[in-house]
């Protein structure tokens, strides 16, 4: 037992103006609508590739660094010969029909230019559509099966206690990551995130197979996902507690990585509506279109998404910009709803990033964390530790992380990413993680019952600060609603970072849907989720 008192979410501790809250949600709905319309009227090369992957297209052409994934080859060929305006699946299943129903053979034939894709007509078209629909249903079954399988495994081996302690491994080599992840799980980690190599976000393809050459992280590949999931299942059995696996669906291949996560039963995915725009300079249209499809996959696979608002506070000031975190959470919540995610799947992110030299830093952090808890009572909030003000002074850093844990415990944060005392120096050592777990065990155990006892002074500093942040959030959302999402990003309203609608990487992969666009995978996903595509 980590804690004496069971985990709970302290609510009703601050008097929150319900009217303001409701207005924030209405504004978010208004802001999201045109963006969702964009997603509903466009596709991207990566969405089409994700769909091909889901119906079973895989493998690579060529070797080593030159290797090109078959899904890329097929989409490129279809794009060149037919265009992608009506989707890749009908031309692809037309090719499948001419290859005797063999998906691999059709993919290889297209990739090898032995077969030129075409838009079939008449009976051929109906045949391709029927095949595509069947394959889509099977693919979506497989995603849904991940959710069922997870439930079964959790039931059998046992559920982890909350808060879930979340740790990162980042060696660059999957074979090195595995023992580190298993060691972390044995020492108490409930969630393991394999952080990705720098640069993966900018790759317009997903690398293939087990990899061992990442920088500051390990490539997200389907095989790496499979290997790590199996390794964590193994320790989970040993520990009698399901150990969750996290990766990152962001960057140019967000939809494909989401699809792979669904197929390999990952449990959580970083999947923010804006992270790639702000922090990797991915084109905003591409990102908004891709995130919608990705979130549908996550929704059906029972994956908890993690949003990335914590990052805003690395580029912007954590006091002055606290409201931007909340505003973005309302937007992320809205975009999650429209993609079919339930509240229980919304791991909205926020962070403990105020400069420790600011007077009352701890009080302010408490106010922010409690406010967010009150605003999203059913979401499994993801709380992020200090990073920006972590220096080479690991001793002070350890204490700072302890204060973060304390605020997390008092405000009932569900998913707690443990801070590393060496954050300001390098990606974590094995022992850094172990010490972080010791710190967390102490605080979450020692303060387990304390949160339930605390009440804040009515009209006191905590409540006043919370009200101020909520009000600033409302003002910001009003402004965003007024000028629109794209203009708001262009004005640097999020993360103090300026991006333009046509700027950044990946716009070339955005395709406006023509009348007659067909995507049976997306259709089937939205049908089962009960949402419009």
């Amino acid at each position, binding site marked *: 037992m980590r804690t004496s008192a069971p985990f709970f979410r302290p609510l009703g501790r601050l008097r929150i103006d319900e009217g303001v809250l409701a207005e924030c949600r209405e504004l978010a709905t208004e802001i999201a609508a045109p963006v969702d319309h964009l997603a509903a009227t466009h596709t991207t090369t990566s969405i089409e590739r994700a769909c091909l992957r889901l119906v079973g297209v895989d493998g690579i052409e060529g070797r080593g660094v030159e290797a090109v994934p078959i899904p890329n080859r097929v989409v490129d060929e279809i794009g060149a010969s037919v265009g992608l305006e009506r989707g890749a699946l009908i031309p692809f299943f037309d090719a499948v029909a001419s290859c005797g129903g063999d998906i691999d053979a059709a993919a290889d034939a297209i990739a090898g230019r032995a077969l030129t894709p075409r838009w079939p007509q008449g009976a051929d078209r109906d045949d391709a559509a029927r095949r595509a629909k069947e394959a889509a249903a099977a693919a979506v079954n497989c995603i849904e099966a991940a959710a069922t399988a997870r439930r079964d495994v959790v039931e059998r081996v046992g559920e982890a206690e909350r808060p879930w302690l979340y740790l990162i491994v980042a060696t660059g080599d999957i074979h090195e990551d595995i023992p580190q992840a298993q060691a972390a799980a044995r020492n108490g980690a409930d969630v393991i995130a394999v952080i990705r190599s720098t*640069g993966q976000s900018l790759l317009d393809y997903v690398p293939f197979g087990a990899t061992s050459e990442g*920088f500051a992280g390990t490539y997200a590949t389907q095989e790496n996902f499979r290997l790590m999931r199996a390794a964590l299942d193994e320790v989970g059995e040993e520990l009698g507690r399901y150990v969750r696996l996290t990766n990152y669906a962001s960057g140019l291949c967000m939809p494909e990585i989401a699809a792979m996560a669904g197929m390999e039963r990952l449990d959580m995915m970083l999947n923010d509506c804006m992270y790639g725009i702000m922090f990797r300079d991915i084109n905003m249209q591409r990102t908004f279109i891709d995130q919608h499809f990705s979130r549908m996959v996550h929704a059906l696979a029972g994956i908890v998404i993690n949003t990335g608002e914590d990052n805003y506070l690395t580029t912007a000031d954590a006091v002055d910009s606290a409201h931007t975190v909340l505003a973005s959470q309302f937007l992320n919540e809205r975009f999650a709803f429209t993609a079919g995610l339930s509240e229980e799947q919304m791991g909205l992110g926020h962070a403990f990033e105020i400069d420790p030299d600011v007077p009352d830093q701890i009080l302010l952090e408490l106010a922010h964390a409690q406010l967010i808890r009150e605003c999203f009572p059913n979401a499994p909030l993801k709380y992020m530790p200090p990073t920006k003000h972590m220096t080479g002074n690991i001793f002070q850093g350890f204490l700072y992380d302890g204060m973060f844990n304390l605020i997390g415990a008092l405000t009932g944060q569900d998913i707690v990413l443990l801070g590393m005392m060496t954050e300001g120096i390098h990606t974590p050592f094995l*022992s850094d993680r*172990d010490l972080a777990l010791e710190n967390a065990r102490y605080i979450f155990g020692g303060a387990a019952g304390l949160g339930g006892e605390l009440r804040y002074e009515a009209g006191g500093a905590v409540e006043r600060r919370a009200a101020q942040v909520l009000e600033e959030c409302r003002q910001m959302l009003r402004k965003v609603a007024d000028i629109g999402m794209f203009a708001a990003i262009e004005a640097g309203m999020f993360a103090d970072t300026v991006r333009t609608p046509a700027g950044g990487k990946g716009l070339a992969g955005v395709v406006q849907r023509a009348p007659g666009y067909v995507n049976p995978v997306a259709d089937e996903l939205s049908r089962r989720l009960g949402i419009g595509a």
Partner: protein
Amino acid sequence: MSALLRPYGDATGDGRVQLSFTLPIASSERARQAALELARKMGFAEPQVVHMKEMGPDFSFFIVYGATAHSVDPAGLTVAEPDFPLLPSPEINRIIRDSLKRQLVVVGACTGTDAHTLGLDAILSMKGFAGDKGLEYWQEMRIVNMGAQVSPGEIVAAVDEHAADAVLVSQVVTQRDAHIFHLQEVHAALTEAGLRDRLILVGGGPRFSPDQAPALGFDRIFGRGTKPSEVASYLAWKVGRRAGLSEADLTRAATLA
């Protein structure tokens, strides 16, 4: 009187040092002895394992105290002393004007796959860092901030397009020596384009030290906590030198950095 330095625990010359490390071995008396032996090999007399913690079946963490047998003579060390003067703001502008008769054009980028821009922005943007304005503040400098994830080829193109005088390269991610590799790449690309020699080539990032510059073919490298005014002073001093301004003229109102 000896100028030799030894670590200070709670008495002069006691040489006491604290260190921690992990060994890939299960916790046991043998593991503890292994940690002690390792400490002795590192030059610690009478080491003590004050903490041994099992981390799963395969690893143990140790905190060790010992007294080092070694000492150093700081006077005998070669230290890359800053060789440029810290100039007051107006002097920076004046020197650039006198040397170039036009603005100094600075191209800055964070290269490779590194997406960290805050360090570069701290140096370049008006907002600056630690109470110091960034390079954009000086009228005699024109700043082209290319942001992050910039390839060496894009830097070469920007140098051409803007007829740059100086290139500033930032690198934050250091795992597997990514930062070294990326600076080398930029150096190679500029050299190949025949631009290296006419440029002031400056690198920076939290894990660099100035003495790495010559080996990487850079004119100067700045490390953690660099202030923009130091970089501005360096650039002005360097263009002044290249333009043949006398040392006296360059350091007129300067304190030595």
